């Protein structure tokens, strides 16, 4: 049989048991495969070596302040909604050494840092691709390129997957970021009962498929896949009207709702840590006791941390009200002025992982009430 011609834009069918071959191929090409696996009662993005380590047969339940993994009763790999972790931990690591210095007639660099591995991200959802594109705007600007982010990002392979089962806190359909893949992936999967439909998104994706036992999908399965993707749009657990954003926030900086939220918000920073677009960072020096060596690190920071806005003249945002307002008015307001897009992809993580169940899809309507025009 002649080999099936594969081009960027083609859709082919890969038998489900051959997912392992696909992962093996990625590793063979030098990628470290990072994918979903069950840990701490949730789905985490960890190094994986095969499909057997993935959360097959699991689905998840989300509500404000709640995430539960439960049996799905089927053998699908991607029936869960992503957990607290997002891919930003790969491109923008929570903690990374920038350089080491040693005092030796002036400060001299010690050694050199290892280059980052090439990562293949397995099971990237459409909203997560949207989040990566948003972080690209922050870290890969025309006037400033973050070298840590750039090295990891440019070498990465993205194995994406269409979302067929949105979760209880999902609202990507409102944000226009999902649940269907549109661009930004090397290979895009749609998981059916017996096969994965594989959409070839790039030349690198085409390369990985070569030699794998893919077939031309029949019209019936293509139709079924389209139906499943279309149906997912209607299964969002949340929705958000964004028609008057960012103005509704930026014109209501003195709205009483900010005070009301601050009575519930604990300023714990959980929402900013789980948010796949939040990009704020801090630096730390760790020095030896005698002060002759120091390691400079970049770590995640959060606008909810008291030290975030601390300066010699005092704290710019001394209370929870001002910190929550900063977060939300940035995320769904001034972000658009800075980068031309809103900073939210509708993944629902900030709702799911809020210990006191603050729900931005409820807060925006609350801030909309009694708006002054």
């Amino acid at each position: 049989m002649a080999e099936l011609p594969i081009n960027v834009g083609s859709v082919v069918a890969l038998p489900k048991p051959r997912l392992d071959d696909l992962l093996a191929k990625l590793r063979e090409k030098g990628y470290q495969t990072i994918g979903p696996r069950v840990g701490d009662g949730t789905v985490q993005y960890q190094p994986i070596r095969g499909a057997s380590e993935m959360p097959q047969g699991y689905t998840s339940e989300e509500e404000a302040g709640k995430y539960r993994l439960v049996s799905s009763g089927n053998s699908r790999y991607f029936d869960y909604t992503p957990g607290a972790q997002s891919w930003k931990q790969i491109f923008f690591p929570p903690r990374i050494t920038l350089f080491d210095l040693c005092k030796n007639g002036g400060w001299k660099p010690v050694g050199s840092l290892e280059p980052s591995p090439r990562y293949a991200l397995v099971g990237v959802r459409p909203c997560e691709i949207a989040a990566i594109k948003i972080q690209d705007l922050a870290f890969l600007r025309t006037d400033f390129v973050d070298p840590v982010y750039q090295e990891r990002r440019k070498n990465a392979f993205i194995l994406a997957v269409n979302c067929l089962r949105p979760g209880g806190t999902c609202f990507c359909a409102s944000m226009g970021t999902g649940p269907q893949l549109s661009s930004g992936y090397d290979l895009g999967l749609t998981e059916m009962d017996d096969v994965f439909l594989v959409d070839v998104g790039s030349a690198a994706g085409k390369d990985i498929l070569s030699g794998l036992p893919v077939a031309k999908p029949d019209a019936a399965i293509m139709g079924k896949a389209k139906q499943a993707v279309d149906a997912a749009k209607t299964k969002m657990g949340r929705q958000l009207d964004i028609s008057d954003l960012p103005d509704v926030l930026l014109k209501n900086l003195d709205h009483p709702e900010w005070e009301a939220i601050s009575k519930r918000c604990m300023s714990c920073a959980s929402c900013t840590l789980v948010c796949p677009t939040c990009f704020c960072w801090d630096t730390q020096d760790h020095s030896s006791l005698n002060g002759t060596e120091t390691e400079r690190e970049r770590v995640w920071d959060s606008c909810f941390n008291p030290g975030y806005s601390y300066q010699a003249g005092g704290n710019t945002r001394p209370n929870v009200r001002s910190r929550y307002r900063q977060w939300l008015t940035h995320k769904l307001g001034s972000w658009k002025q800075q980068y031309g897009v809103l900073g939210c992809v509708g993944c629902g993580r900030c709702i799911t992982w809020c210990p006191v169940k603050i729900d931005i899809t409820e807060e925006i309507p609350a801030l909309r009430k009694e708006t002054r025009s």
Partner: protein
Amino acid sequence: MTALAAVRTSAAVNDGGLLKPSWAEVVKIQPEAEGIATYWLRFQDSNLSKAYRFLPGQFNMLYMPGYGEAAISISSDPEQRDVIGHTVRFVGNVTRAINRLKIGDVVGIRGPFGTHWPVENLEGKDLIIAVGGIGIPPLRPAIYHILRNRAKFGKITLLYGARTPSDLLFSSELDEWRKSDIDIQITVDRADSNWQGQVGVVPTLFYKFRLDPTRTAVLTCGPEIMIRFVVFEALARRVPTNQIYVSMERNMKCGQGSCGHCQIGPYFVCKDGPVFPFSAVEPYFNVEDF
């Protein structure tokens, strides 16, 4: 976006590696007042020393290994290129470590960062420079520029306030500035027994002279509360909002609009500021704790 584009005047800056400093030697330490001194730094790399340029009002990140970085405005003459002056108040972890530096010690520098006082666009105008406390060092490079080009500017008035007479910075230079036809009005919060001058806050100095709002620009830097009332007095005299320039202070870590700390609404103060036309920051200026 237009307001944002208008204040994005600084040149593209990329330090080559994230947060990697260049090293400079302390060549002179000039005590200015209790708890404040000017550190004159020279890059160890002579090529960098020759190539380094800054504009009045820009700042550097000074790095003390083991302690971290602090944003310090450059207080020296932009035309003096061999050594760069940084006037530092010893108030935090990093600046207290700077206080322990001796001649010949080494400090890391990244910069220059941020927008500048738009002196090149203000020729022909009367200028009011209103500064308080540690707010005068960021204006000194602008004053040097004006002195060098004195004929190109109209009336220049410096309104300067400090807590006490002994807190006044650069006092040995003030007479020279007066000789170059700069009207200097000084006030202190608390006088001592030798003080013959004005007592009170900087904005009250606006009542000591008349200005022509059609040809006046105001440049102000100091405590946020002082800036607030300087702006109030300028607006009361009908100076247009885009002719009032304010230098904002926020927690700054990266200098490149990346780390997020210094945001005011759509702006990253380290990149889109620190010098803003008041018209750009006006919507956020009176929002409490923003």
